[in-house]
């Protein structure tokens, strides 16, 4: 298969000068949905940790592929198949560069972060974890980084260990270190917590785990849209993330894995594309990354993800991170001044997530009342029930921010919460 060289497909990195400017009003123009009204009021979209909105460039890239270049990939000799393949593999190169992986063979396209974790559990996990072994996770994991390990441990007679968090929602590193024992086969944890916003000190944690020869999987779903990721600098073994939380289409995700680990793993699903030859006696598996991509992939949405990466590169992850931090500080201050409001998750290192409870009002009611003003927040347990249990609450309301949110929108959120208080007074 002939894959175009990186230079022709990906283009150069944006210049540093471009990264310094951050014009949120111009950025908002790139997202068609932000122009729509909800019940006559402008949409205030603060549910980005659940899923982010899409820039026109991403929507157009998908339409363009289907309108002009679409055919199946890796197969035909005809023009369209070659063009589709080029676009699809071009996106892989963009992902490789975006997270600074060593090779495109280490970039596996899956359906989302959830499937990426399941893939590792069902291949690496099944081979490496035996009866009596341990898999270590943390209290702040999303269900998608709990249940696959629970199933694996049940199947193997292994034990799931859980590293605790403190009242701010930070991992207690001493406790985590103690739980890294001779029987630990894998440490799986969130890079950034979806329910609390905590940014875990993953460099330090990975170093700790590697000292004991424990490989580490990071669930990066909440990190990738907000900060620059360098998998080689982190020395992480597996990194999972979703396209839809980083302004790309839903239905696509990425598993990064170190090549040596991926080579040693058995296939996940089997079928077309993941084989190099098949007879009824013997099947030889395809090389990486195709060994893990059985069947026709989600071609157009992978291309859309590539465009989302171009979009983020055009703004610069450092600029995005800095702007969101400013928003977080502003929002934290504003919400803290509301009587009866308690922020859940006050880690010193935090992404732009504002999870809160309001005295005497259930989060569900908060969500309904805010929605009347076009303000979209998530209410509930955020697929992290153990986090809710840790804080002794059934649920929270969560405003999660992205690069297109503004301080004016946070002011509307504050006004909306005052309205909730008024209704319930």
């Amino acid at each position, binding site marked *: 298969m002939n894959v175009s060289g990186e230079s022709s497909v990906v283009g150069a990195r944006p210049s540093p000068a471009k990264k310094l400017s951050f014009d949120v009003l111009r950025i908002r123009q790139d997202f068609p949905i932000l122009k729509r009204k909800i019940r006559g009021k402008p949409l205030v979209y603060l549910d980005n940790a659940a899923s982010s909105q899409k820039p026109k460039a991403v929507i157009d890239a998908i339409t363009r592929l289907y309108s002009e270049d679409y055919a199946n990939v890796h197969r035909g000799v005809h023009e369209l198949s070659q063009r589709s393949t080029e676009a699809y593999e071009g996106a892989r190169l963009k992902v490789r560069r975006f997270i600074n992986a060593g090779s495109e063979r280490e970039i596996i396209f899956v359906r989302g972060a959830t499937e990426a974790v399941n893939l590792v559990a069902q291949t690496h996990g099944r081979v490496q974890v035996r009866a009596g072994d341990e898999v270590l996770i943390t209290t702040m994991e999303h269900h998608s980084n709990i249940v696959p390990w629970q199933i694996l441990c049940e199947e193997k007679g292994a034990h799931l260990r859980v590293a605790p968090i403190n009242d701010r929602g930070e991992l207690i590193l001493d406790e985590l270190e103690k739980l890294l024992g001779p029987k630990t086969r894998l440490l799986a944890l969130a890079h950034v917590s979806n329910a609390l916003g905590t940014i875990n000190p993953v460099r330090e944690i990975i170093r700790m785990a590697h000292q004991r020869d424990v490989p580490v999987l990071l669930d990066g779903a909440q990190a990738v849209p907000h900060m620059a990721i360098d998998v080689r600098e982190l020395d992480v073994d597996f990194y999972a993330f979703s396209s839809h939380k980083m302004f790309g289409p839903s239905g696509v995700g990425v598993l990064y894995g170190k090549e040596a680990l991926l080579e040693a793993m058995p296939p996940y699903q089997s079928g077309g594309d993941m084989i190099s030859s098949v007879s009824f006696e013997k099947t030889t598996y395809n090389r990486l990354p195709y060994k893990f991509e059985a069947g026709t992939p989600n071609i157009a949405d992978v291309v859309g993800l590539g465009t989302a990466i171009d979009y983020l590169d055009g703004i610069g992850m450092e600029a995005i991170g800095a702007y969101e931090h400013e928003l977080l500080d502003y929002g934290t201050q504003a919400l803290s001044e509301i009587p009866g409001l308690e922020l859940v998750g006050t880690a010193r290192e935090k992404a732009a997530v504002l999870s809160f409870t309001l005295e005497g009002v259930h989060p569900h009611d908060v969500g*309904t009342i805010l929605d*009347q003003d076009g303000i979209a927040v998530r209410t509930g347990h955020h697929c992290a029930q153990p986090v809710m249990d840790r804080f002794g609450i059934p649920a929270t309301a969560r405003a999660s921010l992205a690069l297109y949110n503004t301080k004016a929108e946070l002011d509307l959120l504050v006004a909306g919460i005052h309205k909730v208080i008024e209704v319930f007074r």
Partner: protein
Amino acid sequence: MEGLRELYQEVILDHSKKPRNFREIENAAHHAKGHNPLCGDRVTVFVTLKDGRIEDVSFQGAGCAISTASASMMTESLKGKTMADTEALFGRFHDLVTGKVQRGEGTEGLGKLAVFAGVQEFPIRVKCATLAWHTLRAALSNHQEAISTE
């Protein structure tokens, strides 16, 4: 604000802040747990029967204003009712909150429960309003497993 006031009527807010019959009935012959996994609401309903009628009914749990008020007002409206009465009342209540009947019509016999008409405008909240009722029905049919809205 109009729709909101319709949903969060004074009587609903009152019941959500001061739920009635919010207690356990020890050794209740009928009880069941209900759960809405989407929002985390949990309710346990306890029922005792005498001569085919509901003698006492109570609930415990944690939930939003709509689910708490609905549970509270349900317990107030059921004492002395037969199984058939209870089913009929649930049917009418369900029709009301799902918008099968318009407000003001077909609300005969619902009594105070008619205040839940505002839920019609908030389809996502129908499950909140009906959780306690589904749990009650599970209790009466001696359902062992916790019931779920999903």
